[in-house]
């Protein structure tokens, strides 16, 4: 790859080193860890009502069951565990609390009201049915409108309404710009609530060394360091005695970036009973209690000039965040994101946004791959389609006109986000060519009908906010998200390399990608490098894996640490080869005089010297060991961009949408490993297809969850996902180390609008456009059988 000329390992399509283990069943997820002697199994009794006051919980029956060790309720727990308080009172934020085990009020179906400890998990579950909970049912609020209504029942009465977070911002001159427009289009775009549906539900095991009063907690989490922080805070336990390990984790997607009551309870109960405590959630637990997302409504208006320049955009976002602010991200992730992410690839100067988080008696909703961006782009691209129709412009011409050009970067958008580059036009043309847009159009009949199907094509241009550092999290008002990442790189005494990263991996290929980065610095084979993640005792402090931060920030930290080690290797080599440091190059596992094979020391020899296992001594003043620990905190945020193009067909009899062809032109800056980027995009597109066409968490009006199994919550299967063609465009960032941008979420972000636009195109003959997700067969059939307007 000519663009990567200076690199030997970065940019190589190296197969993932973790795959053999993952694919051959060699991985160990929490439930696979050998059971610790004396383990007690925890089962959780969940509130059967959405809103209620606990009168009494009678646990005597459960306690009488042979094999049951203890039953704990909130009343008995008292204040021995501090509540989760994710946000503090400050401008825009209201402080709410979540009790780990509520003693008084339950706020969603799934709130934990009692836990059982038993000798085996079957007995623990049997015991749940013997607990008698007397709960006074209270009126719940379930949907956004009900929660915002005058006199609405309050989820947390102490904040006076159901709005724990709200923010509003208007650019100067907005109203004048809006008023001067030749055309205004508007609509309300809604998205049904989603679940993350990781293959492995959450679970954890806590073990306490009673003598040392120290804890090891294995958890299926994306944020081991933040979880450790939370345990220390909520259980008042010195961090120095806490170790959190994320073993193999079967998918995260954001929901596992939150800290959950079960993790805190397992740690607490292991300490209290002096025995290991294990909890493994099942699919039902997961749907009931793992955070949901995307339960949002975007009321958007776009003002344009007669020839199609976007002049001003108004965006009012309301997000249903459920009963509690997520810990540690707080109440604002989706609402804030919905406002900030909307001005993506397009140029417009004036922006007026208002975003609110709305609490209801439903499961907490928080971050999920793409956060608010898929819906924000669905709304924005949807408005562009409406604008094109209203102004009589070609939808592609309208996009070409408004997409930011490379010469307009660096660019600060109307939401105040600075970006150093974007290849929107190049991606657009590449995607159009790859999907044969012109050929498709030429073959597409005016009424879109081919046989019993309507066919359409959709093209969406999106950005992805990646690699957010400390400054972004402080601006967003987050108290417990440090933003930076750390890495330790150590050459062991035999010359092999150990790397420990502050993140954890849930299948993203971290172990391969970071080995490639370190290999680049050290001039060794990536295969010689062992990367470990997920263990707070082994890795430096850091934030965790979420928000497409891994490659940029942990990659940056690994690069810095490995550069420091490389410098020391050069110093030692220069000393013994008696040449200048600057003349040493690190290649093929050797430090050598540039271009001279004979003038070289192997890494093994240098490691021997550094560990005092070699007759040769270290240079004067040099420390023993060959190791560095460095952190990286990039400035602000870096935007990746992509264009997604989808061809769909709709069965006119049933309204069922099928995605026939799919292309992504994708730019995530300097690529560490194109295979891994492709995997991220493919998986993301599959998830986006799920949101676009079928997925949905549903509550009834009393707050009962209707989708508690994979029978009711429909996710796409292999047969529903088309082949995905991918074109890589590489525009290195000038803001980040190595020019890397993130790639974890763009797949989802682009797929949602692209599929929706393709459906709009297929329905064009009927004049209908979609405005809510998912595009279920029934919804689409209702749009098709709607009388066509003005015909």
């Amino acid at each position, binding site marked *: 790859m000519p663009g990567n000329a200076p690199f030997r390992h970065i940019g190589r399509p190296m197969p993932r080193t973790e795959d053999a283990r993952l694919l051959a069943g060699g991985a160990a997820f929490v439930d696979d860890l050998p059971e610790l002697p004396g383990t007690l199994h925890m089962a959780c009794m969940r509130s059967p009502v959405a809103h209620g006051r606990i009168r009494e919980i009678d646990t005597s029956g459960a306690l009488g069951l042979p094999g049951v060790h203890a039953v704990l309720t909130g009343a008995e727990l008292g204040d021995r565990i501090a509540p989760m308080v994710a946000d503090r009172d400050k401008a825009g934020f209201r402080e709410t609390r979540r009790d780990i085990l509520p003693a008084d009020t339950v706020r969603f179906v799934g709130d934990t009201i009692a836990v059982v400890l038993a000798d085996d998990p079957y007995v623990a579950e049997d015991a749940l049915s013997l607990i008698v909970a007397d709960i006074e049912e209270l009126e719940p609020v379930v949907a956004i409108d009900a929660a915002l209504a005058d006199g609405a029942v309050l989820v947390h009465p102490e904040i006076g309404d159901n709005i724990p977070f709200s923010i509003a911002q208007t650019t100067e001159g907005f109203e004048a710009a809006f008023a001067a427009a030749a055309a205004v289009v508007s609509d309300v775009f809604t998205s049904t609530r989603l679940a993350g549906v990781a293959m492995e539900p959450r679970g954890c095991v806590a073990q306490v060394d009673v003598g040392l009063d120290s804890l090891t907690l294995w958890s299926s989490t994306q944020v081991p360091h933040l979880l450790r922080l939370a345990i220390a805070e909520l259980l008042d336990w010195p961090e120095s005695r806490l170790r959190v390990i994320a073993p193999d984790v079967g998918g995260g997607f954001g929901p596992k970036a939150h800290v959950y009551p079960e993790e805190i309870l397992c740690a607490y109960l292991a300490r209290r009973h002096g025995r290991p405590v294990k909890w493994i959630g099942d699919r039902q637990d997961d749907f009931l209690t793992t955070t949901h997302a995307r339960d949002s409504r975007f009321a958007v208006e776009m003002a344009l000039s007669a020839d199609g320049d976007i002049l001003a955009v108004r965006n009012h976002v309301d997000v249903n965040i459920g009963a509690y602010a997520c810990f540690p991200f707080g109440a604002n992730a989706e609402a804030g994101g919905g406002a900030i992410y909307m001005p993506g690839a397009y140029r417009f100067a004036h922006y007026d946004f208002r975003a609110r988080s709305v609490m209801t008696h439903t499961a907490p909703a928080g971050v999920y791959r793409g956060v608010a961006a898929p819906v924000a782009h669905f709304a924005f691209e949807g408005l562009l389609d409406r604008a094109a129709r209203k102004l009589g412009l070609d939808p592609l011409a309208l996009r070409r006109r408004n997409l930011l050009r490379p010469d307009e970067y660096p660019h600060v958008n109307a939401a105040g986000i600075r970006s150093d580059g974007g290849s929107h036009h190049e991606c657009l043309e590449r995607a159009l060519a790859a999907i044969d847009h012109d050929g498709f159009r030429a073959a597409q009949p005016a009424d879109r009908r081919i046989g019993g199907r309507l066919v359409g094509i959709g093209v969406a241009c999106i950005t992805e906010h990646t690699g957010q550092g400390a400054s972004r999290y402080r601006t967003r008002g987050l108290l417990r998200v440090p933003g930076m990442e750390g890495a330790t790189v150590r050459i062991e005494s035999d010359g092999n390399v150990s790397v420990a990263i502050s993140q954890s991996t849930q299948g993203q290929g971290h172990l391969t990608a970071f080995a490639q980065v370190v290999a680049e610095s050290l001039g060794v084979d990536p295969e010689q490098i062992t990367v470990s993640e997920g263990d707070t005792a082994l890795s430096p402090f850091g934030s965790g894996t979420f928000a497409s931060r891994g490659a940029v920030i942990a990659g940056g930290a690994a690069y810095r640490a490995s550069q420091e080690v490389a410098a020391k290797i050069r110093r030692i080599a220069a000393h013994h080869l008696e040449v200048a440091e600057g003349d040493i190059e690190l290649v093929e596992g050797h430090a050598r005089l540039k271009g001279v094979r004979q003038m070289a020391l192997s890494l093994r020899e240098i490691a021997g010297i550094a560990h005092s296992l070699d007759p040769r001594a270290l240079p004067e003043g040099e420390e023993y060991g060959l190791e560095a620990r460095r952190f990286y905190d990039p400035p602000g945020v870096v935007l990746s961009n992509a264009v997604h193009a989808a061809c769909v067909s709709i069965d006119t009899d049933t309204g069922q949408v099928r995605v026939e062809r799919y292309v992504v032109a994708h730019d995530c800056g300097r690529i560490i490993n194109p295979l891994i980027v492709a995997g991220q995009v493919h998986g993301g597109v599959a998830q986006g297809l799920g949101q676009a066409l079928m997925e949905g968490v549903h509550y009834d009006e009393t707050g009962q969850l209707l989708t508690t199994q994979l029978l009711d919550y*429909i996710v796409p299967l292999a047969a529903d996902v088309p082949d995905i063609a991918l074109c890589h465009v590489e525009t290195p960032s000038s803001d980040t180390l190595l020019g890397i941008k993130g790639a974890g979420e763009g797949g989802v972000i682009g797929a949602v609008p692209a599929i929706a636009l393709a459906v709009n195109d297929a329905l064009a003959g009927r004049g209908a456009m979609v405005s809510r997700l998912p595009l279920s067969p029934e919804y689409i059939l209702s749009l098709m059988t709607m009388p066509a307007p003005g015909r």
Partner: protein
Amino acid sequence: MRPASFRHHPARSVDEALTLLASEDEDARILAGGQSLVPLMNLRMAQPSALIDINGCDDLGRIDEAGGWIEFGARVRQREGELSTAVRARLPMVAAALELNGHPATRHRGTICGTLAHADPSAELPAVAVALGAEMVLRRQGACRIVPAEAFFLGALETCIEPGEMLAAVRFPVQPARAGWGLAETGLRRHDLALAGIAVAMLPAGVTRICAFGITPEPLRLPTLEAAADDLPRSGGTPATQARIAEALAADLEGADLVDTLHASARYRQQVTATLAARALADARQRASQETAT
């Protein structure tokens, strides 16, 4: 996802299974392929006291053809039926229904009798059994009765199997030459449970039997549509034909207890059933005419 405790009795023969059934209480159940029962037990939505496991009953594992019938024992897997040359040749609609049932992995374990005994409203085979006039062989210790498919299904997950009884076999009349058939369904995904479906059996004597699934708790015969089927024009798809089908269907569904769920309203189910019926009828007619040609 952990079942409540239960007694497990592996049976080696149908007689042993019947003896075990007789000795157990009313909450005992047959364990066949487990593809529906085990998930329900894991969710504790089913809590049988005992399972009579018929997976070891080799005498229930046969597909027999005799006297114009093909009979499937209770342990015949769906995949075996689907791939059987006799079934593909003489009960093509049964093979087609089995292909639509779940995935190869579930069909390798799930049984033909199991999907009938389970009686899920969205299941294909019950409707096909009604359309083809299948017969259920119900046995208890020392007794046997034959129930026509149409009388077997009582509601969602409800059949006329009584405590102590099992579905020992199901038999289908082999389809005469010049019989036509059509089977159409739609779901939320490809290869998914049906939101609505239609099975059409067209016999040479001009008898057409049509049965819908997924729209009512039990498979529903559609007599008005059956009566109308003969004089519908041969070409499917025209708006006039569609309207006549929709009208006949509406008459058949008058007063029916329509399934109405999160994923598809009763209205949607009725609407797509009409278009599916047009497809299935057209297919049936086309197959009938092909059969004539040979």
